[in-house]
């Protein structure tokens, strides 16, 4: 806290007046608070507030901390980094924020960015980051060997780290799996007033529709989306869990969700009357289940690129993969890694092999298409 004093000094007289106004009681409270800060075992990060913290990063020797910007949340990345530090002795510092903000931040920081690595969710976002020119190529034989090509960037700017499937969920009480076949089929007459969808503002749905455009063409995709909208039982919900809640109480019978949300609900409710259905699997021509990734890229202006590469290569290794994916009930990026038993119980499925980089290229088209189709 001491390093703050130069900045507070000019306003000190005013603060004094204010404090006098508020009298003793508040002073006591603030004193108590300062005491808590001073005594709490976690006073480290709090007292690191000012200049010295960032200076430290700047002076860092190459072998010191790797700095990660992440839009994947803290509780999902923290255990992974802890394991990395344990195994390699290299410290990882991170900050979290929304992906779009982090990308703008990296651009604004330019050459002086303290960050080495960006971890974010969704191929569209990764593609956007690459297009904004903030990444350097990975140039890693290990990544190329372990990660299937369609889950990596064509130009090698980023790689996927874990896989999530966006698939159909249905009520086992009111729907027979034989009635289901494909994403397109949810627009058929038999599902009139029985479909629930999450809002089109969520990037997961934007990517799904982008992939529909990639394989079906824009006109066809638009009529599919319109037919979904026509079959909606209730207005689009704000999240995937609400889709499942609505099916549970009988507001609708089928919906589209990410698998890990299903996993969480399954853990909470033992005999869940819901099941996952893998669409577009039967015919030879069927495209398979839409998958998306959480992924990573090394920043162009990383001052610690060698260590950053080491982190990325470690992240696609077997031990890291089991943890990175398992902690969020996702699928590892490589088939050889053993899947969390609960996730394995949902069965095998054919993935859509279209390169994920398409998701970025077609995402604006997908957003516009959904606006036109009246998908809110």
């Amino acid at each position, binding site marked *: 806290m001491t390093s703050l004093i130069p900045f507070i000094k000019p306003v000190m007289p005013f603060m004094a007046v204010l404090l006098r106004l508020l009298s003793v009681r508040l002073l006591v409270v603030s004193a108590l608070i300062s005491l808590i*800060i001073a005594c709490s075992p976690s006073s480290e*990060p709090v007292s690191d507030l000012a200049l010295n913290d960032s200076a430290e990063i*700047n002076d860092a020797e190459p072998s010191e901390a790797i700095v990660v910007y992440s839009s994947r949340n803290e509780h999902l990345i923290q255990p992974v980094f802890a394991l990395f530090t344990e195994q390699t002795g290299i410290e990882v510092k991170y900050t979290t924020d929304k*992906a779009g903000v982090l990308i703008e*931040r990296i651009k604004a920081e330019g050459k002086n960015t303290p960050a080495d690595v960006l971890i974010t969710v969704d191929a569209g976002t990764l593609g956007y980051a690459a297009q904004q020119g903030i990444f350097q190529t990975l140039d890693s034989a290990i990544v190329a060997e372990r990660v299937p090509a369609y889950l990596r960037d064509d130009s090698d700017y980023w790689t996927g780290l874990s896989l999530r499937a966006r698939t159909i969920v249905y009520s086992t009480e009111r729907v027979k799996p034989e009635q289901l076949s494909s994403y397109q089929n949810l627009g058929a007459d038999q599902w009139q007033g029985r479909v629930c969808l999450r809002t089109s503002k969520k990037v997961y749905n934007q990517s799904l529709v982008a992939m529909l455009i990639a394989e079906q063409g824009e006109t066809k995709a638009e009529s599919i989306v319109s037919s979904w909208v026509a079959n909606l039982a209730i207005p689009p919900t704000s999240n995937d869990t609400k889709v499942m809640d609505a099916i549970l109480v009988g507001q609708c019978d089928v919906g589209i969700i990410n698998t890990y949300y299903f996993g969480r609900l399954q853990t909470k409710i033992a005999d869940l009357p819901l099941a996952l259905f893998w669409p577009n699997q039967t015919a030879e021509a069927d495209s398979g289940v839409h998958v998306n990734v959480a992924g990573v890229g090394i920043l162009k202006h990383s001052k610690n690129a060698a260590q950053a590469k080491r982190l990325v290569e470690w992240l696609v290794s077997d031990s890291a993969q089991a943890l990175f994916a398992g902690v969020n009930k996702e699928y590892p990026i490589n088939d050889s890694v053993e899947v969390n038993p609960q996730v394995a119980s949902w069965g095998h499925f054919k993935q859509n092999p279209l390169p994920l980089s398409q998701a970025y290229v077609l995402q604006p088209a997908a957003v516009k298409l959904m606006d036109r189709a009246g998908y809110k």
Partner: protein
Amino acid sequence: MLNLLNLGKQLRKIGVWQVFLVVMALPTLLALLGVLSSFLHPDIESLSHLAQYVLPQTIKNTIFLVVGVGVVTTTLGVSLAWLTAVCDFPLRKFFVWALILPMAIPGYVMAFALVGLFEYTGPVQHFLRETFGSSSAFPDIYSYGGVVMALSLALYPYTYLMVRNAFQTQGLRSLEVGQSLGLSIRESFWRICLPMARPWIVGGTLLVMMETLSDFGTVAIFNYDTLTSAIYKTWFGLYSLPAALQVASVLLIFVVVITLLERRSRASQRFSQTRSAKSVAGRIRLSGVDRWLALLVCVLVFSLAFVMPVMRLLYWAVPNMNADITSQFLGYVAGSTSLSLIAMLMIAGLALLMAFTARTYNSPFAKIVVRISTMGYALPGTVLAVGLFVPVAAIDNVLGAMGLSTPLLQGTMVVMLLAYSVRFMAVAFTPLESNLLRITPSIDAASRSLGVSGIKMLAKVHLPMVKGGLLTAMVLVFVDVMKELPITLMTRPFGFNTLAVRIFELSSEGLWERAALPALAIVLVGLIPAFILIRKSDAR
């Protein structure tokens, strides 16, 4: 004494204070220029799509929302303030401060709790279905009414606090005037008390409307599309920051219109308080049915806006309580509290300086500059955060090019506090401004004739007169900084976390069970200043 007077004159000549005003407005100006500069690269393709399919609906929704929330919060805020400041009814003393508490609940937490309770899958409709076989008569929470309710319950305390300050200091006095003119209490209320409280009412409503314009979290839970949702969709969905900023400038037009309306509404009026606020008459003792009606209204608002969401949070938090209260968690509490405390002192201090300066140099220039520096409150937080971060990073990069070790500014608390002051200047300034209106020129003249002038006059004469407004400003800023998210996320140093950041991390993954504990902590810490404020303002 003479020296001080001269000092004041000299300052005036050099224009130090004008410079101060401009410096205060500069960061906001930078952010606004950032928004407007997007027109240098118009993204015609995205814009024409937005204009055809998105903007008509979102603009309509935004107008409806701002008006709806404005009307409901003003009605709630004014009537509750009147009841607790001027009337007497059972449990009044409790509700005086209890009715402030919902302010500490972030809007999206309020929305989530309300939706969780009243939606089709929630316990209320479940109960109705179990008992009556159907809940179809129950209004849909995912509706215009639902959003307005959630936002109003979260925001009415702003109006309540400000208007209470007015009624507290002049309500009974105005009633006496009314009585001496032979007016009934009802007539006095409409014809004297309400018009006299107008600057506070308008100020509170203005704050609420700006907050509504910039809200994203609450409307997102209802999937109710406003201009702010359109901005985020354009930025993150269409990947067009320029088009997003162009939509943001539509938002700015809204702010300018609202501000102009407010200016106009009181351009011809002057507000002064002639004598001390102390009143000889007692409170109005409500009788019979009125007593219980007043109580009922308070109970209803308090239960909906506070008890219910807090119960919901407790229901989630308690099972995880032992595991989640760690030293790390206490660190979040300390981080949030100290940050809010420092920001509160700084922003209230700056707002005070600005208000005095603007009052002393009552020029059109000063007025415009002050308006600009309070506009940050209406911009969506994320847009403002990026708008400020870009120039700060650029300065750092220039300094770096000059050979200084960088980053000098990024990741420091200086940038954080600067950004907070841009965002919350309106919150601190508005309550002060209404109070300053009451200080008449004759008071200045009188104090000068007694040999008190210059800075001494500010400290000895004016400051005590705006005490109520200052206290309100401090509480509002404290709680607002506690709840703030986008700026904190973007500018916080590595490893520094606040309660709001923690709520965001967990709730954005749908882990509300664990987000509940930090949310409760925010409410708990927010209780402290609310309590102090009431003790102070009721002590008079």
